[in-house]
């Protein structure tokens, strides 16, 4: 039931020559273009910081690139700022800016590229850099209500282990703090939701829903209650420890993120993963995607209180979890990825059992889907609820199933293929309505495509090794990308000379999509809030890291 809707996104192939020539023509002497390293195809180094906003805007809007992420690194004498864009089917484009250490003001690009809004806020909170022209800095990761100003915990001198003597790090509630409210109406108030979520079991997130009574005029998200500073912990650790951290910060997409990290190191060290490992990685990644989407479907049915459907979907989820455990030894596929392949191999019987379980799960989902589309009371809650129009989705660069339901066709498996995804037959479903119902349809379709791909990958398996020996010594930069169940995820790693992690930055899809969530929830009634939250299926912990 996937409709090939008109796409308002940049999924068409970008011509490399046109891009390079266009940039050089417009920005001439201010830039120098070269080949990038570690997975980056084109690196555009800027000589003056003032060109940054215009260049970003040009790349995003005129050249048809999409936004990837923003990596800030602190070196001894300078800051290395790397803005990553994706040119569809061409590769990654990096806009590189070096800023001397003393300078703390950098032009903001978020007026042109709105998707970069939260990336810049994150760097400001964690590193203390200030971005000129950004509409709202502060109160992001380190909540102003409890953290004092000026704590930049990701800077080099800051120690990661807690020192009891350093009491200035201890937060204290600030009694004079007031939320920065947007609606100026005498009768307006901001209803607080969370952080201990009132809906039963939920992740810790906090929203201030500004309203004048019935519908939400503006939603102010305050996330990062799950912030554990994974990137800071990873500094100075060895690669296997880093891999463990990458796997564990968002465990419902554990395999995808660990695969992203592993591929970053593999790219750094120029390691070629064996064929069997690539195909098994496809099997496991799609298994995870299938299970993740089933879990989201369960949550959607649960949020509308359609109890039988929620139970049925949770049966499928539990079956998939048990199948994963029987296959790999862990319900959530922990501990499988290694740099250079997988940590263990799988026999034909196990693969056959997995195949059967997956087919059964897909069958069940088909039946459930048919039933759900006949339940008008359920569809009424989803239709026209939490609408994100395609223009907004393009504007905010929404990823994953959420973006695809609003007409965005981004899928790294097609645009920037890895693990030989280009040789598999699959479709990427797209809808254009952008409401909860569209998101539900996309989730079902993607689940079926995942089941299809598992079958294809298992059929192609040939005998061979699953791991190549590691080379521990190299240093450098590597970027790994993966289409996680929630969308495109980037892992950027720099190793120092002793092979330890110097900087690790994970750009996760939930981080990107939360920005779009509060756009979706505005102008809807309070009762729709948990339902829209469930249809987005975002993970606060994946965003918070």
């Amino acid at each position, binding site marked *: 039931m996937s409709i090939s809707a008109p796409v308002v996104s940049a999924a068409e192939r970008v011509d490399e020559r046109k891009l390079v020539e266009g940039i050089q023509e417009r920005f001439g002497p201010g830039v120098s273009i070269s080949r990038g390293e570690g997975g980056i195809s084109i690196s555009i180094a800027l000589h003056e910081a003032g060109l940054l906003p215009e260049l970003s805007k040009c790349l995003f809007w005129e050249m048809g690139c999409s936004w990837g992420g923003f990596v800030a690194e602190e070196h001894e004498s300078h800051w290395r700022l790397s803005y990553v864009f994706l040119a569809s089917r061409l590769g990654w484009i990096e806009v590189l800016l070096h800023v001397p250490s003393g300078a703390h003001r950098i032009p903001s690009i978020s007026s042109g590229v709105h998707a970069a809004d939260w990336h810049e806020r994150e760097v400001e909170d964690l590193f203390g850099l200030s971005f000129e022209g950004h509409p709202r800095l502060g109160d992001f990761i380190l*909540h102003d209500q*409890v953290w004092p100003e000026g704590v930049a*915990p990701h800077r080099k001198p*800051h120690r*990661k*282990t*807690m020192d009891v003597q350093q009491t200035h790090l201890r*937060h204290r509630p600030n009694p004079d703090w007031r939320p920065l409210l947007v609606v100026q109406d005498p009768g307006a108030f901001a209803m607080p939701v969370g*952080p*201990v*979520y*009132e*809906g*039963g*079991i*939920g*992740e*810790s997130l906090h929203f201030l829903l500004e309203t004048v009574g019935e519908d939400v005029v503006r939603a102010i998200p305050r996330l990062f*209650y*799950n*912030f*554990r*500073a*994974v990137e800071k*912990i990873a500094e100075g650790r060895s690669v*296997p*420890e880093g891999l*463990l*951290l990458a796997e*564990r910060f968002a*465990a*419902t997409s*554990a395999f995808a993120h660990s695969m992203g990290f592993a591929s970053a190191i593999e790219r750094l060290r120029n390691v070629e993963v064996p064929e069997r490992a690539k195909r098994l990685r496809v099997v496991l990644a799609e298994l995870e995607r299938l299970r993740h989407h089933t879990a989201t479907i369960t949550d959607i049915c649960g949020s509308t209180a*359609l109890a*039988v459907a929620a*139970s*049925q979907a*949770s*049966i499928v989820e*539990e079956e998939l*979890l*048990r*199948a*994963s*455990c*029987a296959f790999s*030894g*862990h*319900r*959530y596929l*922990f*501990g499988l990825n290694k740099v250079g392949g997988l*940590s263990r191999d799988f026999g034909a019987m196990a693969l056959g059992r997995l195949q059967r379980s997956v087919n059964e799960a897909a069958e069940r989902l088909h039946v459930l889907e048919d*039933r759900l589309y006949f*339940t008008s*009371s359920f569809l009424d809650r989803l239709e026209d609820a939490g609408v994100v129009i395609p223009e907004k989705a393009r504007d905010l660069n929404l990823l994953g199933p959420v973006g695809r339901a609003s007409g965005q066709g981004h899928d790294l498996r097609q645009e920037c293929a890895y693990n030989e995804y280009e040789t598999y037959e699959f479709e990427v479903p797209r809808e254009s309505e952008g409401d909860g119902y569209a998101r539900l349809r996309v989730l079902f379709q993607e689940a079926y495509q995942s089941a299809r791909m598992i079958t294809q990958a298992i059929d192609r398996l040939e005998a061979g090794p699953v791991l190549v020996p590691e080379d521990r010594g190299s240093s450098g930069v590597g970027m790994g990308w993966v289409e996680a169940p929630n969308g495109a995820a980037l892992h950027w790693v720099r190793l120092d000379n002793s092979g330890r992690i110097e900087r690790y930055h994970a750009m996760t899809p939930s981080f990107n999509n939360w920005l779009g969530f509060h756009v979706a929830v505005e102008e809807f009634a309070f009762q729709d809030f948990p339902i829209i939250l469930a249809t987005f299926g975002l*993970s606060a*912990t*994946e965003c*918070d890291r």
Partner: protein
Amino acid sequence: MSFWFWHGLKNGIRTTQYPVMPDLTVGVTPGRPVKTLFANSQEAERASGICPTGAIVSHGNESAVLLGNCVHCQRCRTSLPQAMDWREDYEWTIGGSDQKEFEALPGAYVRSTHIMVVDAGDCGACLREVKQLNNPFYNMHRLGLFLTATPRAADVLLVVGPVSENMRGPLLKTYEAMPTPKKVIAVGACAISGGVFGHTFMSAGGVGSVLPVDLKVPGDPPPPLAILHGLLVATGRKSPSREESVATVGASA
């Protein structure tokens, strides 16, 4: 809409027999490493070295497991020449602390326990496993266990995650808002010992540094049956695990 009723009936009963009978279905638990006798002491040392959180402690050629620190990375199972012994059970709950024995909730709460779940920086897996307790396989309602959204009506506080610094305040407030008698259960390796995150400026290294913990359910994540076992221990219907190898230590690396 009445087809939902028949649809549900058609699918039959899936609920596990636990706690009346043990559940032996494949896939309900990832299992755990247990005390292993290695060929020589180097193998044992290698086993201790490979564990990222220090859950394997070797004396001579014998390696014991501190389950509270185990994060289920499976390296001791897949990456050693001689793999650690593995047991597929799920009754892992450890009760009490150094100071006192564990006391279960009194009689009135045994068949009607209300649980408040707080996510204090969890990775998502432990929370998901707690959510599975509501599915038809485990169905905790039949055992008198219910979830509540407000601490004012809660008897048991179930905490997942290593207690990130931003959640320390809300977690304390939740605990304060609960009326006595109350029990605190730390679910997952992160909640017991900090897991892979340990003790940093943003992570308290386990619930024990913030609240008095009554029960600990190890695993990363503990399967739903293990969490169920923990809840049954809290109400006194099961007793906590007494195995020697299931002792915990404080902070990890």
